[in-house]
C-alpha cells in the first residue's frame, strides 16, 4: 500500500494573538501552552505539526475539543494561515500561492464538508450540490446531470428540488457530501462531518463514506473527536493533544502500543475485540500447526471469538484472497484483548 504523499505538513505552528511572531520564539524555545497564555497572552493553536497525508487514504485527525484539530484542517486549504511552517499539496507549498491560485486550488483540488453542513439555505438541493461548478462560472444546465448523479449516489434521489431546511440533518449532510463529490476534487476535507448527527445516522454515514471511498479512492482528511469513528474510518490516525501530535500511525498499532497516557485513557473505553483485526494480532505461519479453521485477515477479533466459542487452545489459519498469510492462536488473541497497562484505574 505504498502511496504518494498528497499533502505534507512540515513544522507547522499556529499561534493566536496580537503578536504571534514574538510568541513563536518563546514556543520554539519550549514554552508550554498554559505558560504562553499566562505570560504572553497568546494562545498556542498548533505546535510543530509534521504529518504526511497519503493519496487515496483516509487520514483521521482525532483529538478532544481545543486540541487544534479544526485549526489544523483549515490550514490545508488556507482558511487559516499558519504562523510558521509549510503545507505542500502535490509538492507545491500552498503558502506561496497568490489569491487567484489559491482559489483555483480550492475549486479544483480540494473540497470540504462541514460539521453544521453550511448549505446555502436559499438554493435548492441540486443547486447546492452544483456549487463548485457555479463558482467556476457554469450554469445549472452544465452541472445538472453530474449533480443529480452524485445526489442519487448518496441516496437523495427525488429530493433535488427541495430546499435544505426541508431535509433532516442526515440528509442535509448527504447534500454536503454530494457537493464535495460533484466538485470532482481529489482531496476531501471533512471537519467533524458526522458529529452533529445522531448515532444511528452517523453510523450510516460512515458506511456510506467507506463505500464511496472503495469506489473513488479520494484522499480524505477526516476530523473527529470520537475514537470509535476514527478507528472505523482511519487508514492513518493522527492523535492531537493541546496542539501537538502525540502519536500517529496505523490505528491498530496505536491501539496495541499506545505511547502516551493520554491515548491510553482514550483507548481504554473502547471494545477492543470489535476494533482489532486479525492481521494486527497474527503471527507468522508455522508448518506444524493444526488449524481449527480459516479466518480472513480483516476479520475483527470479535467474530473469531464467536467462531472459537471461547476455546483458547485453537489455532486458525489466516488467509488473504485464499492464500495463507499467517497463523492466529486464540492465546495471542486473548492477550491482545487485555487492556493496556494504566488503562484500568
Amino acid at each position, binding site marked *: 500500500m505504498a502511496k504518494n504523499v498528497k499533502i505534507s505538513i512540515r513544522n507547522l505552528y499556529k499561534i493566536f494573538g496580537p503578536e504571534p511572531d514574538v510568541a513563536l520564539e518563546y514556543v520554539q524555545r519550549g514554552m508550554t501552552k498554559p505558560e504562553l497564555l499566562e505570560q504572553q497572552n497568546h494562545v498556542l493553536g498548533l505546535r510543530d505539526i509534521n504529518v504526511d497525508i497519503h493519496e487515496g487514504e483516509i487520514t483521521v485527525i482525532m483529538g478532544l475539543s481545543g486540541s487544534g484539530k479544526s485549526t489544523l484542517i483549515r490550514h490545508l486549504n488556507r482558511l487559516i494561515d499558519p504562523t510558521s511552517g509549510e503545507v505542500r499539496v502535490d509538492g507545491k507549498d500552498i503558502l506561496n500561492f497568490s489569491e487567484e491560485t489559491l482559489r483555483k486550488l480550492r475549486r479544483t483540488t480540494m473540497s*470540504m464538508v462541514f*460539521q453544521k453542513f453550511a448549505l*446555502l439555505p436559499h438554493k435548492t438541493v441540486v443547486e447546492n450540490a452544483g*456549487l463548485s461548478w457555479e463558482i467556476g462560472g457554469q450554469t445549472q444546465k452544465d452541472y445538472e446531470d453530474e449533480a443529480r448523479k452524485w445526489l442519487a449516489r448518496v441516496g437523495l434521489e427525488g429530493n433535488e428540488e427541495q430546499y435544505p431546511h426541508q431535509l433532516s440533518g442526515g440528509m442535509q449532510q448527504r447534500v454536503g457530501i454530494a457537493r464535495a463529490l460533484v466538485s470532482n476534487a481529489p482531496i476531501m476535507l471533512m471537519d467533524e462531518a458526522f458529529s452533529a448527527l445522531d448515532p444511528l445516522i452517523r453510523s450510516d454515514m460512515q458506511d456510506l463514506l467507506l463505500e464511496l471511498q472503495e469506489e473513488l479512492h479520494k484522499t480524505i482528511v477526516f476530523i473527529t473527536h470520537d475514537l470509535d469513528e476514527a478507528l472505523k474510518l482511519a487508514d492513518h490516525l493522527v492523535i492531537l493533544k493541546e496542539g501537538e501530535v502525540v502519536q500517529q500511525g496505523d490505528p491498530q498499532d496505536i491501539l496495541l502500543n499506545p505511547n502516551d497516557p493520554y491515548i491510553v485513557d482514550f483507548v481504554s473505553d473502547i471494545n477492543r475485540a470489535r476494533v482489532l483485526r486479525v492481521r494486527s494480532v497474527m503471527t507468522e505461519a508455522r508448518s506444524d500447526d493444526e488449524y481449527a479453521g480459516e479466518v480472513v485477515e480483516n476479520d475483527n477479533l470479535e467474530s473469531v471469538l464467536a467462531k472459537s466459542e471461547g476455546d483458547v487452545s485453537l489455532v486458525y489459519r489466516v488467509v488473504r484472497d485464499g492464500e495463507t498469510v499467517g497463523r492466529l492462536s486464540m492465546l495471542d488473541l486473548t492477550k491482545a484483548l487485555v487492556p493496556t497497562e494504566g488503562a484500568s484505574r
Partner: protein
Amino acid sequence: MATYDWLFSSLGLEEWCGQGKSGAPMSMADLLAKSKGDEAQEESLWDLPFPSMDALNESCAAFPKSRELTKGLEDGFLNIKDSLSLVLDPITQPLSWGLDGALYAMLNTPWWLVIPIMLAIVFLVSRSWKLVAFVAIAIGSLAFIDHYDYAMQTLAIIFVCAFLCVLLGVPIGIAMARSDWLQRSAIPVLDMLQTLPPFVYLIPLIFLFSVTESKLYGIAIILYAIVPVVRLTDLGIRLVDKEVIEAADAFGMTPRQKLFKVQIPLALPNIMAGVNQTIMMSLAMVVIASLVSAPGLGVLVLRGIRNLELGVGLVSGLGIVLLAVILDRVTKASLARVNAAQKQ
C-alpha cells in the same frame, strides 16, 4: 455688580472686559431687568447662578453671551450657504425631477389605470388575494371621499424617496458590514439622524433650497428614513452564518461572488425588514414635510390644524393610517415570502 466679578478681577482681565460690548440682541430677561430698574439686591448663596455664558457676561461685557453662540452658527451657515448650495443644487436636482415626475405621472394617469396597476403590484409581491382585496377597498374608499389625489401624491413621494433610500442605503450598509472602521464612524451619524427631531432637518434645508423646489422635502424625507435600511443591511450581512461564509471560501468563491451569491441573499430578510421600516418612516416624514410644501394628505392635516377644521384633519389623518397599513402589510407579506424561502 454681578456675581462673578471676582473671577475676572483675580485673573487680571478687567481691562479686557472693559473693552468689549456684547453685540448680541437684547434678551427678554434683560428688558425686564431694565424696566424694573436696578435694585441692589443682597445675594445669598442660595441664588448663586451657574457660571454660564450669560452670567459671566454680566460681570464682563467682553465675554460672549450664549445667544451669540447660536447667532455665530447662523452667520457661519449663511456664509457657506451660497457655496454649499452651488455644490448641492446640481447634485440633488435629479431628486426634484424624480419627485415632480412621479407626482405628474400619478396624477395624470387616469384612476382606472393607476388602481389596477397598483393592485397587480400588490399581488405580485404578496401573492395574497386577501391583501389585494383589502388594498382595493382602502383605496376605493379614499377615492370615494375625494381624497384620491392627495393619497396618490403622498404615495408618489414615498415611492420615490423609499426607492432612493434603498438605492443609497443598501450599498452604505454593505460597506459598513465590510469595514469595522466605517461602521464605528457611521453609527453615531445614524444615531443622530434617527433622534434629531424631524423639524430640525427642515431648518437648514429651507436656507439651502427654495421652498418651491420639491427636493427640499425629498432630502428631509431621505435623511430621516434612510437609517433603518442602512442599519439592517449592515446587521444582516454581519449576521450571515460564519460556517456558510467559510464554505463559500473553501469552495473558492471570489469576494464579489460571496457578496452577491451568499451574503446579500442571506441578509435579504433583514434588508427587507429595513425597507419596511424605511417606508414607514418616510410616511411619517411626508406629513411633517407638508410644512415645506410637500403635497399630499399632510397638507390636509396641516389645514386641519391651522384652520381648526376638525373633520378635515381627522379624515386625512385616518387616510394616512390607511396608507400606512397598506404599505406595512404589503412589504411584510413580501418579507414573509422571502423568509419562507430560506429559513434554516
